């Protein structure tokens, strides 16, 4: 038994750590106002307070802490991207996850059991080779494996030999994994608030006062505050929030759905995803099988679930693992994703001098939580975009410097 459990067992009362302080009254002014109390906003607050000495920070959250996409994603962490800019960024993301429990003194249960992406067509295999070559060149653990190795990595897969969905190979990313999403946000919140950052739940930003290209005031349902620097990181509501500051983002919102089964004794040890079937599966530490796939087919700001997406995901899951047909589904849910035209995020400067963007995360924001937090904090602290974030500038849509990650996210979040 780990020693820390003794502390609980031997204390007369439950020893309260107090991870999340009660929401205080708003002060008139903050050095930094972070709009959005999800993983990204809280991570940024943590890095600002711990590494840049900036603690006069307010994190404003409309609902409850980390209740948006941080709570709704399927927690995949990986760096098997195509562009060198993407790989460098997400590779550091994976490294920060490896250190995160220690950094936060909060167990985020980063479970690096590897991600296996399946190829059913030669075109998919070709794209895997490109990911592997790019990844290997950047020093990540990634390789293309043949059908035999796929079978060894995930022995219960239906290989569909000779069939229309025959598995002809795979992309094995041994660094890939999952983490407990809520814990990531709570760990950052606990650390940041211990250093003086204020976390305001049920605090909705209603508008901004702008003078001479600067945000001067942030208007909320609990009062108006003035802000030195402002960051927007509100997931599915980024388009709307930026518009309140007069900034038009190239973003469209689509629901992304997922579902989970009843707990089973562990049998699926890696994350398995299929590009052709738009389905991925991972078994959590609780024993539940989490199943996800592609976004909904049309624009919508709703976290409603659909039966058709559930049928589609069940089809994919039972095709890959036919014996799952008797396993029972417990719950389905959805998040709202903010998709950009090149399937890459928008980070850094905005047309306003003191407004910083952390937007356009689409379906892959969770894995970037620490690395986006780290470099957004650096950007805000220096009031200059960190070099790591430069490729992700919003300006790229005016200059055709798009990031070539299109098609990179299918079924692999």
């Amino acid at each position, binding site marked *: *038994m*780990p020693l*820390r459990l*003794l502390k*609980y*067992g031997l204390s007369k009362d439950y020893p*309260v*750590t*107090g*991870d*999340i*302080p009660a929401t205080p009254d708003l002060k008139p002014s903050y050095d930094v106002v972070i709009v959005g109390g999800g993983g990204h906003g809280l991570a940024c607050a943590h890095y600002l307070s711990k590494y840049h000495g900036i603690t006069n920070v307010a994190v404003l959250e409309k609902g*409850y*802490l980390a*209740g948006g996409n941080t*709570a709704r994603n399927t927690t995949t962490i990986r760096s098997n991207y195509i562009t060198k800019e993407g790989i460098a960024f997400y590779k550091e993301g994976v490294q920060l996850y490896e*250190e995160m*429990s*220690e950094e936060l003194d909060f167990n985020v*249960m*980063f*479970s690096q059991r590897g991600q296996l992406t399946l190829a059913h067509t030669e075109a998919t295999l070709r*794209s895997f*080779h*490109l990911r592997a*070559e*790019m990844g290997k*060149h950047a020093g990540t653990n990634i390789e293309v494996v043949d059908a035999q190795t796929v079978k060894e990595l995930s022995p219960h897969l239906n290989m569909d030999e000779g*069939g*229309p969905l025959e598995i002809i190979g795979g992309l094995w990313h041994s660094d890939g994994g999952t983490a407990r999403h809520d814990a990531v946000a709570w760990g950052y919140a606990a650390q940041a608030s211990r250093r003086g950052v204020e976390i305001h739940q049920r605090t909705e930003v209603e508008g901004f006062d702008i003078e001479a290209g600067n945000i001067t005031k942030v208007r909320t349902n609990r009062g108006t505050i003035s802000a030195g620097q402002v960051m927007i990181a509100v997931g599915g509501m980024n388009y709307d929030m930026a518009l309140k500051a007069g900034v038009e983002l190239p973003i469209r919102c689509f629901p992304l759905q997922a579902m989970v*089964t*009843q707990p*089973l004794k*562990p*049998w699926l040890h890696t994350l398995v995803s299929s590009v052709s079937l738009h389905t991925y599966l991972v078994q959590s*530490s*609780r*024993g539940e099988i989490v199943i996800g796939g592609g976004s909904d087919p049309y624009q919508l700001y709703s976290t409603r*679930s*659909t*039966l058709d997406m559930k049928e589609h995901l*069940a089809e994919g*899951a*039972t*095709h890959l693992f*036919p*014996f*799952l*047909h*008797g*396993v*029972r*589904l417990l719950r*389905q849910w959805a998040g709202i994703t903010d998709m950009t*035209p*090149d399937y890459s995020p928008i980070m850094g400067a905005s047309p306003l001098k003191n407004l910083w963007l952390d937007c356009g995360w689409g379906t892959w924001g969770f894995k970037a939580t620490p690395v986006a937090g780290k470099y957004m904090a650096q950007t805000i602290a220096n009031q200059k975009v960190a070099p790591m974030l430069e490729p992700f500038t919003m300006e790229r849509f005016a200059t*055709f410097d*798009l990031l*070539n990650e*299109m098609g990179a996210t299918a079924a692999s979040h």
Partner: protein
Amino acid sequence: MTRLPAPYGSRINRAKPVRFSFENKPFEGFEGDVIASALAAGGQWMLSRSFKYHRPRGLMSMAGAEADTLVQLPSDPNAQADLTPVTEGLKVTAQNVNGSLENDRDAFMDKLGRFMPVGFYYRTFMGPARSSWLKLWEPLIRKKAGLGVIDLKAPHQDYEKANLYCDVLVVGGGHAGLAAAIEAAQGGADVILAEMEPELGGALTYRRGSDAMLHDLLYQARKLPNLRLMTGTTVNGWFEDNWLPLIQGRKLFKTRAQEVILATGCIEQPAIFRNNDLPGVMLGSAAQRLMRHYAVKPGSRAAMMAANPDGYRVALDLLEAGVEIALLADPRPGGSGGGLADDLRAKGVRIVQGQFEEARGKSHVSEVKIAGEWVPCDLAVVSVGYAPMWQLPCHAGAKLGYDEDTAQFSLTLPDAPIGAAGGVAGLFGAEAVAASAQSAAQTALARLGKDTRDIAPVPDSEASLANFELPVNANPKGKDFIDRDEDLQVKDLQNAVKEGYSELELVKRFSTVGMGPSQGRHSALATARTVAKATSRKVAEVGVTTARPPFAPETLGVLSGHHHPAERRSALHQEHIRLGADMRPVGAWRRPYFYGPKTDAKRLIEEEVHAVRNGVGVLDVSTLGGLEVRGPDAGEFLNRIYTMAYKKQPVGRCRYCLMTNEMGTVIDDGVAYRLAEDLYYVTATTGAVARVYSDMLFWNAQWRLDVDVLNVTAAFSGFNITGPKARAIVEALESDIDFSRDGFAYLDGREGTVAGVPVRAMRIGFTGELSYELHCPSTYAKTLWDAVMQAGVTHGLRPYGLEASRILRLEKGHILIGQDTDALTSPDELGFGWAVSKTKPFFVGKRAIEMRRNKGLPRKLVGLTFDGPDVPGESCLVLKDDIPVGHVTSVLWSPTLNTHIALAYVHGDDAAEGTPVTVKCRNGARVTAPVRGHAFFDPDNKRQEL
């Protein structure tokens, strides 16, 4: 154990015994029994061990409201023992047990509870090393995780799906549901009533004194031809526009209802006290179900806690069934059971004011503490309150509130064609339930445009069923379970709040309350009350967590049904198989990869290449997209869709087509053959034609040009006859087309007949050789193919497959869209400036191509050859100063040139012929090769114009 005599046991058939086993011990039940009832009849009350502490657990609700009844069936993990019928020979085992159910080696976990407070795992299992979670702790925890065991060899089962339609869907076949369905059907609507239990009636099937009413309702319901009664059918969710999945066994009925009436009733709620999870502690409705449905006596001596009239009725039922009532505790201050209490007292039952403070027992309840007194018993029954079945209404957008007066959750329905009646609407008395049901039905009928009648509301005579706040009787020593699925005690929720997780959703996420298999069915009310108290808020402010589908756990099999991956066959599918082709999937099609046995692939493919280069070969190109673009504006339309100019293209000529999207990215290519002034026949790539076709229609929905587009992909088949001897073959065919060199020039197109078959012939090809492509209506394909093959015999005509085709095209440096291009490839990057008209005012992508051109060329597709031992594979990186600037898109061995040839993106500055570029092989080796033009073979294109 003997069963109670009839009429107890409405669901069992005593003439049909069923033998099965539990934990390898034999048991006998009857047809109609569920696993839990048959086991209880056999004296087996313990069914499982709990999730975390491995405490003994048994049935509490007999209604699927707790995970404790989950058992393992051979191919069915997590089956609900209180809902799953027994079948002959069924092998049932307990879940989450280390060793045996009786002697669980993990039972010591119960003693360690104090070391495992809420969320403890967030604060530990981190050391000693950074990798300890992954390497040490997680494997340990994973071993303990989960409940049932998956059968990796579970045999295939057929699951079926169908669509259903009705005017009114009534969910729930209890009093309210039956009354609503009857009213709606009598009003002329087409009605479906879905009831999840195997018999209709809901609580009327077990509630005291309901027989006559049930009989009458069933009689009325069954004589209505427009009322379809579906039992054993769970309405498992509500989705937009009244789209509801009805699950009946292994069949899913996807149901579209004009109107939905929710008559889902209530779910009885447990009481919180120390050891409230012991087997033998159950809800009043569970005791009644055991007796009425299955003739099982729930115990011999009962302690009873009743905070409403139903509890008193349960006590009367127990007495009648021969169960001794040791004591009835009524926690209500000054509470009295009225006449029911008098009846009980008359029968010698002692009634005290008080509540269950604690229970005791090893693996079954043996005594209960009431008002300081320990009362020996083998059954502890609680009837203290209800919660409306909020799940389905909440899926539909209903708001769940809390009425402080009645101490009940209450539902407010959305403005939609949805109604509610009976218990879910907070009504209990028979007259009030019936009136609410009739009223809901009339509202639905009115919206359906049917004749209606007025229904007067009736006061609820049983309102007292819901006027007591369920006691949350926390015990300082704990084991007072709020959520049995997740082994959560009162203090766990209180401590979560103390840690700052004070919003209900955060309490849920931190403690996992409500996240177990029963999804809050038995815990939501107590959770809300506990959190409200801990945060000094009103229960209404705390609410419940969002209800999400499904209502009850549903199998992945019933959701997936039969899986049918798309499959299309070209007209010559069987012909290729007869010729021994290795058929490979290309989208939904299958195409010949090469002809002959797999073991000889390499030799055969090379032979096919040589046949084309030195003699003649034929390729089936039928899967290529075919589009007819016709009308006075056809030329203008193509001018806007493709990058070249088509308006002045002469009739009888073919022209290359390059398609870009609005971002200037190359997305398809093909050939346009102008058959007439107002008719073009345009090809598209196999994989893209569906999209090209719909994009064309989309653009013209905006442009409104006088043009019509038709997808004739499947309607036309095509063969490309290619090689130096191609002309000899086509000239040997019986035809009215002049195939001669002068009569039919390169890029000409001709219509005519060949071997009696109407054809569109084009001098186009992908191989760089003299080529004739013959297209014909697909029903003639076999005739034409046979004629071509016949004519080819003397010339050694050989059919060739996709792989040879890829080699031949790469030798000529022809690009494959999707392989040599990606989501950003511009025509300039391909060196296809020649294919982009500079004079047209507009085509899709023109402006973006120009804007991108002004930025300079970041990369360019060039040819490379590799002679050394290290040959890069597809997708290998092109490096400049060790930074990736491009990659190899295609690389193959050329049997014609005896070298490896490749197309690759190189840095824009390195695109000039002769510039050395470095490529990194898969093994890490760097090789350098000089840039070449695209065409490796016959760069002057002499052969195709022979």
